[in-house]
């Protein structure tokens, strides 16, 4: 009997030992499995590297608990588990999302510690939805040429989104850094990026009212749990810094990683391994099944003024002009009540615009806006708020473009491939984008001459930016164009063709002829370096150019003539070019182009037909 009891006891202890052993085994197995799960990888912002390991995008040391946490998901998970089994509540307070993660995966059961700072953050943000925000391009600031994205935790009550919070990821820019250095730092990771939270009214004021940029709001379908997790994760990454790269790890990219952390199945970040164009991220978000709930448009102040002005009758326009430029309200009294209200409201917004542009002095601004409001308040309640419809940027063509073309150059036929990673040309479809501006980045052209059977690198446009906003009674923007890159040019005297570098820029004005057509004129300057293929190796020139832009539905056309003056005969020339394209579908277009130039010793003609594919 005793023997039996002993045996049983032995068995009992053995079982306990074994169960301890298996428990330890199963924990390490579970850690191994969980550490490489999509959820954990997304939460710590790990991205796979080319040599089959992981590296987190976040650069701050304080974001990692294990010494090698930046590159080791497993050690980081173990260290996180240790943290939440320890008494270090201060540190625990920094990682509310990791706590939620551990709890969801049954690693821990205890409640989250008491963290007053985090709790007030939670209470302030208290989301009733999460909205992804896109602001379109701001042509006056190169850093904003591609648009911008941010996120909003929606305010609890309907229609009070002014009191919601915008979450922005951006570079911490040293305001003293000069222009070129700023660009260099921005491109090469010289700045750190970080998250900031600010009231949504500030976002609207900044983008809609000061920078005159349209805002598009995309409400996301996230569950209350996901929204809470978003806030928790925002708190975690809000304490961190990450090197900022203008084209890759930029304002939009980190938001993709944050959304991945909230819903790991989205895998948004992996769609942007090379370049992150803000508009592309909006499309990626909208393209995920079950993520997009609704789209809302907040037109910029300039758009609101323009829209109202275009709706006005000639008498309303006259009354508005008198009011704005001669301080004369008399003509408004002859108008019907709705007309008068429209004129006063437009005038008020315009005076605000003038003040921000610093076109008027503070005293004049105050006096005038006050006078307008006093007139306005006398009128009975009359709604002038009408919905301005914008064309959704989701309908625009994608930003990468491949063009295949056949052409003849001086009678010699060729086939050509053009590749452009970003973003938009004046002859691409303007649906959902501005028809007045273009940004072409790194466009690379290879040309194959069929008779010679030779392939040439024909051209690389490093950057080309054009802005042709029409000059009008109310808005007086300067048009400009900057272009730099290398291109094969022929020296007619030596009969050699070489790649030459050039940098040119100019500014001028654009006028609308009809609602579909505008005409522009610029004064330009150029620097060109051609090495041995060019007299004196390099030269400079000044010149003028003029062109016509035409956009209608699926058609877009640009015709441009240029004249250059220079003592260098490689630069002194007259050229004309025209391009017409037709959009077959959102991401397909066909077209034809002609370019002719005349220089000392000869002329060149180039004619092509092409097919564009965007993706």
């Amino acid at each position, binding site marked *: 009997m005793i023997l039996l009891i002993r045996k049983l006891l032995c068995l009992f202890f053995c079982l306990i030992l074994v169960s301890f052993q298996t428990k330890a085994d199963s924990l390490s197995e579970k850690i191994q499995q969980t550490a490489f799960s999509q959820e954990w990888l997304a939460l710590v912002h790990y991205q796979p590297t080319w040599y089959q390991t992981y590296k987190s995008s976040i650069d701050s040391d304080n974001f990692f608990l294990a010494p090698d946490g930046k590159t080791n998901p497993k050690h980081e998970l173990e260290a996180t588990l240790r943290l939440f089994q320890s008494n270090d509540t201060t540190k625990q307070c920094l990682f509310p999302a990791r706590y939620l993660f551990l709890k969801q995966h049954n690693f821990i059961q205890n409640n989250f510690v008491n963290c007053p700072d985090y709790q007030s953050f939670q209470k302030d943000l208290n989301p009733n939805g999460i909205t992804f925000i896109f602001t379109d391009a701001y042509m006056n600031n190169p850093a904003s040429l591609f648009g911008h994205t941010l996120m909003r935790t929606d305010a609890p009550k309907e229609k009070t989104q002014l009191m919601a919070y915008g979450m922005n990821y951006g570079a911490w820019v040293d305001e003293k850094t000069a222009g070129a250095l*700023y660009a260099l730092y921005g491109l090469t990771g010289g700045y750190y990026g970080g998250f900031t939270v600010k009231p949504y009214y500030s976002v609207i004021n900044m983008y809609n009212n000061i920078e005159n940029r349209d805002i598009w709001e995309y409400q996301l379908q996230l569950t209350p749990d996901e929204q809470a997790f978003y806030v928790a994760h925002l708190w975690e990454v809000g304490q961190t810094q990450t090197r900022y790269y203008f084209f890759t790890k930029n304002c939009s990219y980190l938001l993709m990683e944050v959304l991945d952390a909230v819903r790991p199945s989205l895998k948004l970040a992996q769609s942007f391994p090379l370049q992150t164009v803000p508009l592309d991220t909006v499309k990626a978000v909208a393209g995920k099944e079950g993520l997009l709930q609704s789209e809302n448009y907040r037109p910029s102040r300039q758009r609101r003024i323009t829209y109202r002005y275009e709706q006005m009758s000639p008498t309303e326009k006259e009354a508005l002009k008198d009011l704005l430029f001669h301080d004369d309200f008399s003509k408004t009294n002859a108008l019907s009540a709705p007309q008068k209200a429209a004129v006063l409201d437009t005038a008020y917004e315009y005076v605000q615009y003038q003040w921000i542009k610093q076109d008027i002095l503070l005293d004049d601004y105050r006096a005038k806006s006050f006078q307008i409001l006093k007139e306005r308040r006398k009128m009975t309640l009359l709604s002038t708020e009408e919905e301005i419809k914008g064309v959704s940027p989701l309908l625009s063509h994608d930003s990468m473009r491949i063009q295949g073309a056949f052409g003849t150059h001086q009678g010699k036929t060729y086939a050509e491939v053009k590749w452009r990673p970003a973003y938009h040309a004046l002859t691409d479809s303007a649906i959902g984008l501005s028809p007045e501006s273009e940004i072409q980045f790194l466009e690379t052209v290879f040309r194959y001459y069929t008779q010679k059977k030779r392939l040439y690198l024909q051209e690389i446009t490093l950057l080309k930016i054009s802005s042709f906003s029409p000059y009008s009674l109310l808005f007086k923007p300067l048009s400009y164009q900057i272009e730099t890159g290398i291109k094969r040019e022929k020296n007619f005297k030596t009969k050699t063709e070489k790649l030459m570098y050039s940098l040119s820029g100019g500014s001028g004005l654009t006028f609308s002829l009809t609602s579909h057509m505008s005409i522009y004129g610029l004064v330009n300057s150029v620097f060109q370096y051609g090495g041995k293929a060019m007299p004196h190796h390099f030269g400079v020139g000044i010149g003028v150019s003029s062109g016509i832009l035409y956009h209608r539905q699926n058609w877009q056309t640009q015709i441009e003539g240029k004249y250059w003056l220079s003592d260098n005969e490689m630069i002194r020339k007259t050229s004309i070019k025209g391009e017409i394209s037709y959009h077959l579908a959102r991401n397909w277009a066909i077209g034809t182009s002609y370019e002719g130039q005349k220089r000392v010793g000869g002329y060149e003609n180039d004619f092509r037909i092409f097919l564009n594919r965007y993706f």
Partner: protein
Amino acid sequence: MKKLMLASVGFVLLASGSALAHDSTGCGLGSMAWRGQSGMLPQLLAVTTNGLFGSQTFGISTGTSGCDPNGRITGGTQKMFLTFLENNMEQFAFDASRGEGETLVAVAGILNVPVEKVATVSKEHFNEIFSSQNVEVVAVAEEVLTLLNLQVA
């Protein structure tokens, strides 16, 4: 010749340099013309509140930024209301004169008053709320609260 070259290079630099002009992060905007002459909210409060706002304990130290260093609107109703008005004065004045608009909805939300009431009162009493073109934000806030017959903390 050299000058021309410099000019064309300078042009490009100029264009990229304007990138500095705006830092779209952080809070507070430089455009708020009706913010009040002296700019600093605590001073205004000291001069004009006369006890209406009850305790003077909310010493706002962030100046004109419109939000605390964490970017959030904190504090009680009156501080939220002031902060909101300070940053949206022009739009609020516009909406008040019309009797409609998003800022009226926001104010109604902050003060927990029906939107219609805020709209009607603001339009009807526009001249009292905005007594002059140099009106200060605290005076505006004070008048709105008086008209709505509100005592807020």
